[in-house]
Structure formats: C-alpha cells, structure tokens
C-alpha cells in the first residue's frame, strides 16, 4: 500500500499534471490541423509567449500566477490571431507544407522576440517550497498539480460544450469535415479560422503557464514540449481534439511513469530521456496506426 502511494505521489499524479499540459497544447495543434490542414510548428513558442506574459503580470503587478493565467490566455489567443493574419493568411490556398515552412519563420520570430524582451535567464513564478496536500491515507498531491488538473478539466469541459453546442463550435466541426462545403453553405470560413486561432492560442498560453508553474520558465520551454505535443496529437489521431486530450494524458503519464525504477533501483528511463518516451510512442503509432487511436484524418 505504501509502495502504491509512493508510486502515485511521485510518478502517477505528476504524470497526470504533465499530461494536462500536453493535452492543452495538443488540442490546439489538432484543431488547427482540422481547420487549416497543417502541423503548426510554432505552437510551442506560442506556449512560451503565454508563459512570459503571465510572468510579466506576476513580476510587475505582484499578481498570483493563477490570476495572471486568465490574461495570459487572452494574450496568447489575440497574439495567435495576429500571427495568423500576418504570417499564414496569404497561404490559405497553398499546400499545407508551405505553411509549415512559414510556421518555422514564425517560430524564429516569436522566440527571438521573447529573448529580446525577457532575456534568456531561467525564471520562476514563485519561490519557496510548498508542502503537498494530503488526500486519502498516504496519498498526497502537490498543490500546483491539483490546480493544473482542476483548471484543465474546466477548460476541457468548456471546450466540449463549445464544440458540441455553440454555433461557432459546430461551424468549426463543419469546416473540419469539409471546408469547401462549409464555404458553399454560407459559413464565414475566415471567422471560423479566427476562432480556431483564438482557442488554439488561448489553450497554448494556458499550457505554457502551467509548464512554467510545473518546472521553470525559459525561452525554449515550449520548443522542448513540441515533440511530446506532436506525439500526443498523433496518438489521439491528428485533427481530433478529443483524441488529443487522451493522447496528451497518455504521453504525460507514460513519460513520468517510465522514470519509475521498475527493474532494479535505477529509473527505467533516465529523467533526461523523458522526451524519448514520447518519441517512442510517436514512432510506434506511425508504424502501426498513423491515424491514431481515434482515427484522425491525415494519410
């Protein structure tokens, strides 16, 4: 029992928190793919941008990072719409892979702007150590993990409501189903695209802030997560936002649990190689089932 508690406290619960971060990022990648048909390589850097926006509010106004989160989400959403209008809009009729190259450029621009404005030092939202919150028996969870998980659940539920009930959410699904038919039906597809970036960018910013809370803040915090995000999106079936949530959780838990000393006393996978777990999952999916567990659309 104690061993199980240790396993959960040190590996499984943190894995779920990391999985929530991946899920928030991967949902955006999947949505953008569903609507615009390209893999958004600058998504990690949008996450980083959100994290630094929150940092500025924390550092200058003394806000709690959880309050700053709301404004960072708004900032990430608006920045994404701006990026789309300036960088991606001229490519609406181009093959998706051309937009991927453009997103390479966006990646450089966003990251270098972050480095120029905020510098390259490693930063923290708050210092000091907090005791984990006791749950039942020996089970404990870090406060930050509880907050990350709860907020992520709220966000996922709102997203589900939006996609299944709201007019714009349904229009997004329609455009992902058949963009030409959506246009013919009189749906304002450019408005749908703007909403896609608002949501994808907002979720990315939230993921970035959470990534900063979970460890530390540095200019490549988002880039470092790009590989697990892609792995999560592919695992869930790229173009499927709900699949991306499951994929994100699975990759996050797998990465943390893989560092448990399953054999002998040493971690099965050294912590430095957590991203290799994501890569391994990605490769397996590409070999066995490239459409993902939820049958995404690309092939």
């Amino acid at each position: 029992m104690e061993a199980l508690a240790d396993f959960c406290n040190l590996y499984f619960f943190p894995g779920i928190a990391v999985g929530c971060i991946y899920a928030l990022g991967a949902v955006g990648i999947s949505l953008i793919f569903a609507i615009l048909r390209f893999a958004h390589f600058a998504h990690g850097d949008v996450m980083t941008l959100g994290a630094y926006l929150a940092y500025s509010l924390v550092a200058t106004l003394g806000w709690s990072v959880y309050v700053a989160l709301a404004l960072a989400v708004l900032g990430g959403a608006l920045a994404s719409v701006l990026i789309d209008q300036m960088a991606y809009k001229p490519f609406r009729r181009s093959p998706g892979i051309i937009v991927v190259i453009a997103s390479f450029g966006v990646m450089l621009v966003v990251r270098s702007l972050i480095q120029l404005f905020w510098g390259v030092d490693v930063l923290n939202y708050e210092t000091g150590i907090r005791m984990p919150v006791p749950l039942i028996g020996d089970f404990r969870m870090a406060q930050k993990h509880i907050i990350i998980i709860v907020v992520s659940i709220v966000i996922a539920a709102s997203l589900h409501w939006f996609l299944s009930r709201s007019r714009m959410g349904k229009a997004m699904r329609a455009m992902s189903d058949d963009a030409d038919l959506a246009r013919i039906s009189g749906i304002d597809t450019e408005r749908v695209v703007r909403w896609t970036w608002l949501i994808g960018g907002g979720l990315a910013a939230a993921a970035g802030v959470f990534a900063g809370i979970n460890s530390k803040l540095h200019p490549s915090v988002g880039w470092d997560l790009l590989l697990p995000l892609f792995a999560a999106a592919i695992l869930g079936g790229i173009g499927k936002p709900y699949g991306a949530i499951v994929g994100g959780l699975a990759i996050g838990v797998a990465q943390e649990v893989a560092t448990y000393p399953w054999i002998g006393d040493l971690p099965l996978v050294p912590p430095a190689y957590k991203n290799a777990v994501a890569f391994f999952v990605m490769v397996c999916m590409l070999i066995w089932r490239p459409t993902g567990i939820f049958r995404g659309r690309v092939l």
Partner: protein
Amino acid sequence: MALLEATGMVGGYGGMDILNGVDIAVEAREIVVIIGANGAGKSTAMKALFGLINLRAGKVTLNGADITGAVPNALVAHGMGYVPQERNVFRTMTVRENLEMGAFLKPGTQARVMEQVFALFPVLKEKAAQPAGELSGGQRQMVAVGRALMTEPKLLMLDEPTAGLSPLVMEQIFDRIVAVNKAGIGILLVEQNARQALAIAHRGYVLATGRNRFTGTAEALLANPEIGQSFLGG
C-alpha cells in the same frame, strides 16, 4: 426582370476555357434544367454562376443586382442556394446539425425554417440525430437540399441531384423539387437524366462544347427530334 440572368459567360479551370459564351436565365418560380453531353460544361456553368469559377467574360445578375465574381458567402446571403453533386453533406455531423449549418447566416429564422424542411422531408425529422454520413444516398440528397433551403433562398441550384440514385428514389427527389418550387422558389437543375428532368421543368437549355445549343420550353425541347436523338437517348 429575370430572377437570375447570365450572359456571355467565358471561363474554366486554370488556363483552359470550358465555357465559351453561355447564357442562362431563370424567371421567378420557374424550374429550368441544363442538359448536355458529358464535358459540355453543364456543371461548370453552374459553378460559375455560384462564384466558384472566375469568369473571364460575361455578366451575372440576381434580381437585377450584378453578382459577377461575388464569393459564395455573399451569394448565399443574396438568396442563392447551391447543392453540389458530390460531398454535399457534413458526414460526421447529425442531420439536425447539417441543417443548422445551412442557417449559419440566418440564425434568427432557424427553428421555423427547419420545421418547413422537416415538413418537406419527413424522413429527416426521424433521422435528425443521426450522422449524415450514415444515411442512404437519397436521404443524403434530401439533407443537402434541406441545408440549402435553410437560408430561404429565392433560387436553388442543384447539380445532378439524382446521380447514382435508383429510379424510385429519383422520382421522389424530382417530386420534392417540384414541391420546393411550388413554395415559390426558382430552381435551376443540371441533369443527366434529361427526359425525367424536362418532364418537371418549365424551360431547358442544351449545352454543347461550352455554348448554348438549344433553348426552349420543356415541351418544345422534348418534341425536337434532333435533341431526342442526341441528348435524350433516342
């Protein structure tokens, strides 16, 4: 004043012209059918009317307003509805959601118009919660027509609505098209099943190599032996 009037349409895909000067007009409350051999430019002409192909020459007016080169979105708002031949329903969405997407521009009248569509196609009400991709070909065609009716168009354009359907289902679809027309909506049809289409139409156009070949009332076209031989299968 004609509901729809297109004169001298020239255009096609890429550098190739498929239309070499096509005139088409639809009066209010009229059913007009475009027939012709494969490759004559029937579907292309309809796509050009709906702004899906850039015209190099020619003019299109709707209710007197110049709509040449307007984008589909604006045309739908102007009272035009278009049902493409293939991929004409959102397969992963329910029948009800498909109809809602048709009403995207006019959310205010959605509930009322949807009841009218359900009255026209009672089977859609039964299947309202089912994904459109799971329906039969005929039912899918009804969803597509219903979706186009949701904005209460003045003109409904249908590209080969009976392609690939059994004769019985084809008859049903034609019957429903007449019912739509009785409700006061002008209809423009592109059809392979020319004889059956002319039977419900008021007037018809016969296209050949991207030009108007014959134009006349449905009765006159059906009676013309030359048309009967070349375009109506004898």
